[in-house]
Structure formats: structure tokens, C-alpha cells
């Protein structure tokens, strides 16, 4: 990638994370860091703990052991909304949009945290609330322009094809102007063309807004193409960490993916 963006210092440092659900160990002693402005992929076979890892990062799960350092400070166990305020936004493996609402309204919900005027003023659409809404609408229009979804602005999300819904979901995450974007299988179930589009948008987001991206993906071609560094999990343990080339040639990774000859 001939890319001008500057990959900076570690923005997020996960140290010795362990997560258990009762007796089930979802994550065991995992450490890795994410640098500012980079695209960081988490890969691994089914049940390796990838989504759990993402949920730890955005505050859905609280690990029993380990430390999360965000921007140089140790992070306490935070709620999801605190994580969102800190600049984390995510998309989901199974699309989680408001199906009956238009694309525009769905994206506006992404601005929710940034709305400051109170509920009553918003309901009356009066004074500061009106000014604020216009400002938010402008931001949302920038996202619409960026993702090239002008033609479906007013279409209810439920009527859109799957690939476009995925794009709208990315749009909602972008509307929150995140520092760190968590993408849970953004290309799952897409055809080749849709995947190419999505790859381009992910790269553009990273390049244009300088957003740090943490990505879970099954499509190896995609992962190897777009990520700067890859961490590989298997049975809740980290088995490799490095650039796509390093990971590709790592024997443990090959074993985890292809199985071992007995």
C-alpha cells in the first residue's frame, strides 16, 4: 500500500486479557496492541474468540484478568456508552439496523451521542435544537457522499439488499466520528464485487479520516490485502502476531487453519 498516512504510537494496548464465562475460557492471556491510524485484523477459526475480543474492547464484556491501556491511561471497566463516548464505534456480524427507518434516519442515530440539546427542545425542533440538528444532518450528508449511497437516502433499510445494508451500518458507525472503528466481519456473505467495494471504503475511511480500524474477517484475501498487522487467535489463545506476510508463513497459523497431519 503506497499510503501517506502516518502510523503512530500504540493507541490501545491490551495486556494479558483473560475472559471466562463460568468454566468456559473464552480468552486466555492475550496481549497485543493497536497503533494509531493502522488497520489491525483479528483472525482465527470459528470459536477462536474473535468477537469476544471485540466485545472486550468496546466494553460489552469485562475481562476477569488483564489491563486495557487506551491512549496511555489504564482503562477502568467501562460501559458500552462510555466506550462510545471515548471514540469507539462498531458494526456487527449480523446487521443491527432499524429496518423500518430510512437510511438517513439510521445514520442520524449514529449522531445520537453528540446531540446536546434536551429532549423537549428536540421534540419541538426549536432554537438550539434546530441548529444542532442541521449541523448533524450536514455531517451525515458527508458520510452519505463518502459511501456513495445518495440514491437510497430515503429508502427504508429493510428494503435494501444485504450488501448495501452492510454499507449503511458502516455509515452509522462513521456518523459517530469514531477514533477507533471495530468491524465485525464486514464482508461476510458478500459477493466479489460487494467485497471489493467494501474494501475500498474501509481503506478510504482509514486514509481519509485517519480512523484506526480493528477488523475481524474470514476472507483471507481481504485480510492479507488491507491490514497492516494481523493477530491470530485459536481456542482463545494468541498464536501469532505480525505483518500479513509474517502471519502467512507462521507454522502455528498454518496448522490452525489447515489442521495437522497425524
Amino acid at each position, binding site marked *: 500500500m503506497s*499510503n*501517506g498516512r502516518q502510523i503512530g504510537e500504540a493507541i490501545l494496548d491490551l495486556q494479558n486479557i483473560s475472559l471466562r464465562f463460568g468454566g468456559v475460557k473464552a480468552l486466555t492471556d492475550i496481549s497485543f496492541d493497536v497503533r494509531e491510524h493502522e488497520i489491525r485484523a483479528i483472525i482465527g477459526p470459528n470459536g477462536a474468540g474473535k468477537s469476544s475480543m471485540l466485545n472486550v474492547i468496546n466494553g460489552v464484556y469485562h475481562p476477569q484478568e488483564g489491563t486495557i491501556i487506551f491512549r496511555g491511561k489504564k482503562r477502568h471497566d467501562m460501559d458500552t456508552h462510555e466506550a462510545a463516548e471515548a471514540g469507539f464505534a462498531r458494526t456487527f456480524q449480523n446487521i443491527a439496523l432499524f429496518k423500518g427507518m430510512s437510511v438517513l434516519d439510521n445514520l442520524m442515530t449514529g449522531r445520537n451521542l453528540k446531540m446536546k440539546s434536551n429532549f423537549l427542545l428536540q421534540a419541538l425542533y426549536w432554537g438550539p435544537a434546530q441548529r444542532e440538528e442541521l449541523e448533524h444532518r450536514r455531517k451525515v*450528508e458527508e458520510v*452519505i457522499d463518502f459511501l*456513495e449511497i*445518495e*440514491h437510497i437516502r430515503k429508502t427504508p433499510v429493510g428494503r435494501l439488499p444485504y450488501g448495501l445494508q452492510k454499507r449503511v451500518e458502516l455509515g452509522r458507525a462513521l456518523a459517530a466520528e469514531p477514533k477507533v472503528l471495530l468491524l465485525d466481519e464486514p464482508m461476510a456473505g458478500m459477493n466479489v464485487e460487494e467485497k471489493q467495494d467494501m474494501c475500498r471504503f474501509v481503506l478510504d475511511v482509514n*486514509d*481519509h479520516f485517519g480512523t484506526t480500524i480493528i477488523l475481524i474477517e474470514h476472507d483471507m484475501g481481504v485480510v492479507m490485502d488491507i491490514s497492516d498487522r494481523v493477530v491470530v487467535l485459536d481456542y482463545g489463545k494468541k498464536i501469532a502476531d505480525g505483518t500479513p506476510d509474517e502471519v502467512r508463513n507462521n507454522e502455528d497459523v498454518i496448522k490452525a487453519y489447515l489442521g495437522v497431519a497425524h
Partner: protein
Amino acid sequence: MSDNVRLPSLSTFPRLLMHHAQVRPNHPATREKDMGIWQTWTWSQVAEEVRAMASGLAELGFKRGDNLAIIGDNRPRLYWAMCAAQCLGGVPVPLYQDAVAAEMVFVLQDAGIKFAIVEDQEQVDKLLENMAQCPGLQHILYDDPRGMRHYNQPFLHGLDEVQEMGRIHNRNHPEFIDGEIDLGQPEDVAVMLYTSGTTGKPKGVCQTHAAFIAAAQSGCEFDKLVPGDNILSYLPMAWVGDHLFSFAQATYAGFTINCPESGDTVMTDMREIGPSYYFAPPRVFENLLTQVMIRMEDASALKRGMFHYFMGVARRCGAEILDGKPVSGTDRLLYALGNLLVYGPLRNVLGMSRIRVAYTAGAAIGPDLFRFYRSIGVNLKQLYGSTETCAAVCLQPDGQIKFDTVGPPAPGVEVKIADNGEVMVRGAVMLKGYYKRPEDTAEAIDALGYFHTGDAGFFDEDGHLKIIDRAKDVGKLANGAMFAPNYIENKLKFFSHIKEAVAFGDGKDEVCAFINIDMGAVGNWAERRNIAYSGYTDLAQKAEVYELIRDCVEQANAELAHDAMLSASQVHRFLILHKELDPDDDELTRTRKVRRGFIAEKYAVLIEALYSGKASQFIETEVKFEDGRRGRVSADLRIVEAKTCLPQAAKKAA
């Protein structure tokens, strides 16, 4: 306005622009939907933008006589770029924006392009791909900076920076641009438009300011276009039609052009703008009608019943009311009711509520289609012309509309029919010549100054011109009967289920045809009948679809049987192609005309199978995707016979 234009001072487009900036500085000149909001530039703002762009270009070294390539969707700054080049005495050369990189090379080389103004990263990438073959290309300017941050080639410039540079230049040399504009003469070439290349390599058609101003003037006076009019500019800028309507006429009359947000939003944008003046090739009108029909089939029984009843009323008297012909009182009343309940709302949905004049050209329009729009009160008319004649040879006057003619010659244009039936044109709107092709120019323009259009046609009893086909395509069947393939193809294409047709028969005993089904219409039809299909190739080969298409072909045959000249041209056998004909595969021109010769060569096996009477034929074809990748489609194509009718004329005689 028209009085002013006769003054020598308003004889070029830059002078017209500066005139509008003075006379109506605050009147909207250009609108574009951006960030979900319509942005407006007034004539004085446009003049300022054009000055800045022209000065910036001059700073970069653009000189009198240079050609400026313009590539992109309809963006305000690309329209302004045309005028900016003209200010400096340069020639804008718009290219089709959806052409793949390799196709652009020819025009870039042929026109000796040094400067290009393009829309975005996509177009920049295409030009960069061609840099090796076009050593003359010195500067590329882009409108949209998105994704361009990491391009550090010194010859790439953002239009913003170039315009800023031009503004500084203007402050230091305030007289410069006006001086350059004064140097421009009406006989200078104003624009170079490339022919679509239906017949071999594209040729650069050089049109002068005088020619396009004459064409714009005759159109504007003919239809009384005023500054208050609005037009939606959404057709390719490289097409003569768009250049005439969105650039020449808008700059002449001073009306407002409106650029849609993107190609996908044209329908919505049209509804929001409600243009008063509209231009579209028949295919666009057809797509709109197909959509209406599909949606009506899904409407409630009450609405459907109302729609069909009042469409019946409209068919009976709508067009007559529009033409101001006498109609019975009951029909008038029913039509008024229909207007309230059906036609009005329908026009509104189509974004045609405010249309005063709409034109169609570029291909034959089906009588049903044409009648449909006129009957719901849209003043749709036909015109005839070509790139070489500024698209302004014939125009249909209000009230004298016929379905199968293109109207009498426009004011100031002389039309004659040659002995072989070819249409010949003489007048101010004619081309100056083909760029760097004196022999082609000499061939096209005869000693008396007539331009040979290459179209075959004749005048009817009212002096209206009727076009039947390209003169060189008109052939003969083995028995000597006339064979006009385009005429037959159009008859077939008038059916909503058929998107494209290619007829063969020159020198053969009988006529056979390739058909492309319309994916939207046939797909919907199939879903209604619970016919499962996986894609175009699969749907095209369904037995039910063949039955459907055979029905259409047989109806077309029945109509052809009525025509004394063409009754021998009925289609005997046909097949449905396994892929859609596509300009990317060179099967259609960029203006979507079929390239019959190329198709005949590419699918020679299929033609052989048609004429040898086989029941099916296997074929595999390479297809090119828009991004330049290639793939293959293959299928076993069924070949089906269609019933033909006895020639009606002959029967009567017997």
C-alpha cells in the same frame, strides 16, 4: 435577447456568458445537488468561476488553438471548463466518461490532447494508465479531490488550486481574460465532438461558435425558451444533444442547468427540480414507462382500474387535446377528471409536472410510447440531427406532431433527398470539417455544400421528413425485396419485453434475428408466473420466455405484412442471446446503437445456426467488466421459428 445576439459582440459563447453576467447577474445559471442540498451559482458567479479557471489554465500554459479534454459526469465545473477553454481560444473536447481506458487513447491521440480536466480519481487513473501512449498529455486537472491525496505526480492539479492561481492572475492582469475573449471569432472552432463510431473509428467533428449559436438560436426561438426555463443535465456531456441543450442553448437563452447528484439519483432529482424543458433519448422514456407499468401491476385493484380506465380515455383524446384539435365535450370532461386523478399525479411522479417542451432524438421512438407521453399531457416532440449538424436539422412544431416523422426542416436549414434516398443538409449548423481528416470531410460535404447524413429517408405529403434507416444498412434480400434492418429492429424493440434486437437478412432468403430480453420487464413477468431463474442467461433460455418473445415477433411480423415495401422482411427464426449486448464488449456504441457488422462477426456461429435450421447452438463468449477484468459466459441457445403472415397488400390485390 434574440435582438442582442445578432450584434457581432455576442457571436461567441464566452461573450454570451459575459453578457448574461451583466444583464442578469443574480439569475441562477447552474445548480447542482451536493450534500443533499441544491447549490446554486448565478450568472455572475459562473462568469467569475470561468474567468478564474481560464486564467489558471493560461498560467499552466494552455494556449489559443490547444484542445482540452473534458471527462466526467455532468458537473458544473466541467461545463464551465468548456467555456474557460473557449475564452482562451482553445477547443473543449468532451469524452464519454464511461469509456474504458484503452478506448480513450484513440481520441486523446487523435485530438493531440495536452490538457485534460476530469471529474475524479477514477478518470485520473484511466488517464494515468494511458500516459505512455499519449506523450503529448502534459497536465491533468481534477474536480473532486477525494482519494487524490497520495498522487504526487507534478502534472496533476486540483481544479481548486488552479482556479485560485487564476484568481491571483486575474487580480494582477485584470484585462487579460477580456482581451482573450475579444480575440475569439465566430468562425473559430467552439467544440470538438467525437462521433460514436458506429461506422469505424470515431471522427472529431469541429463545430464553430457560429454553427452552435445558430442551432441554439433556432431551437430557442422555435420553442420560445426564456431565462426562466430549467433543464436537467444528465446525459453524457460528449453527446451532441447534451451539448446543444445544456451548453449552447442554456448559454444562448440564459436558462438554468441542473446537475443531478449522481447517475443513480436522476429520477429523484428530476422530481425535485421539475424541469420545464427536457431532453431524453427514447430509451429513457421507455425505461420510465416500464417502471410505471411494473408499479401499476403492484398497485391496489382500485388504483389499477382507475389507471387503465383513464389511460383509455387519454389514448382516445389526450394527444388531440394537446394538439388543440376538436374533441367532444364528454371526452373533454372525462379527460379533465383523469387529469385530476391520474395524469397529474403520474406526471408529478415522473418529474414532468412543469414540462413545457420535451424532445426525444437519437433513435426511433415507438408510436405507443410516444403517444403515451403526449396523451398524459407531456408535450413530447421529436427532432432530427447529428453531431455534424449540431442536432438541429428538423424539429416538430407544436400542434403538428406525427409519430413516424421528425418534422419539417428547422428555420435556416435546407434539406434535400439524394437520388439514392440519402438525406442531405445545408445551412449554418453544418460542421466546419472533421479534425485532421480532409478526405473524410471532402467525402461528407459535396461540391454544392450539402452534408451527406448517411440516413435514408423521404418527405411525406406535409413536408415532414421520415427517416427509415442508415443509408448504407439498407440492403436487399435474395429475392430483391428491400431490407431495412433498423426498421425491423425498432419494431421489435417497441415491445417492452425486448431490449435490443439485431436483424440479419442482407443477401439471404429470409430475415432472422437476435433478441435481448429486457431484464426488468421479463424478470417481473417471470416472478409473477413463479418461474425461478438465476440470472440473465438462465432466464433468457426458459421455454416460457421464448413463447413470450415469439408472440412479440409474430405481432411485429403481422405489422410488417401491412407495409408494401417491407413485407418480405418478416422474421422467420430468432434466438435469445445468452448475454446482454454491451458497449464494454464493443457490441453497442456508447450511445447504444447496435454495431451490426461486429456482432455478425462475433456471433457468426449463431447466424449460421439460424440459417441452417438447427434447433440449438452452443456458444461461449468473453465479457469485459467495467473495471477491465474479463470473464466468460456460455450457454446452449435455443432457436425458434416464428409464424409469418402473408403480405396484406398482396392479398388485397389477389
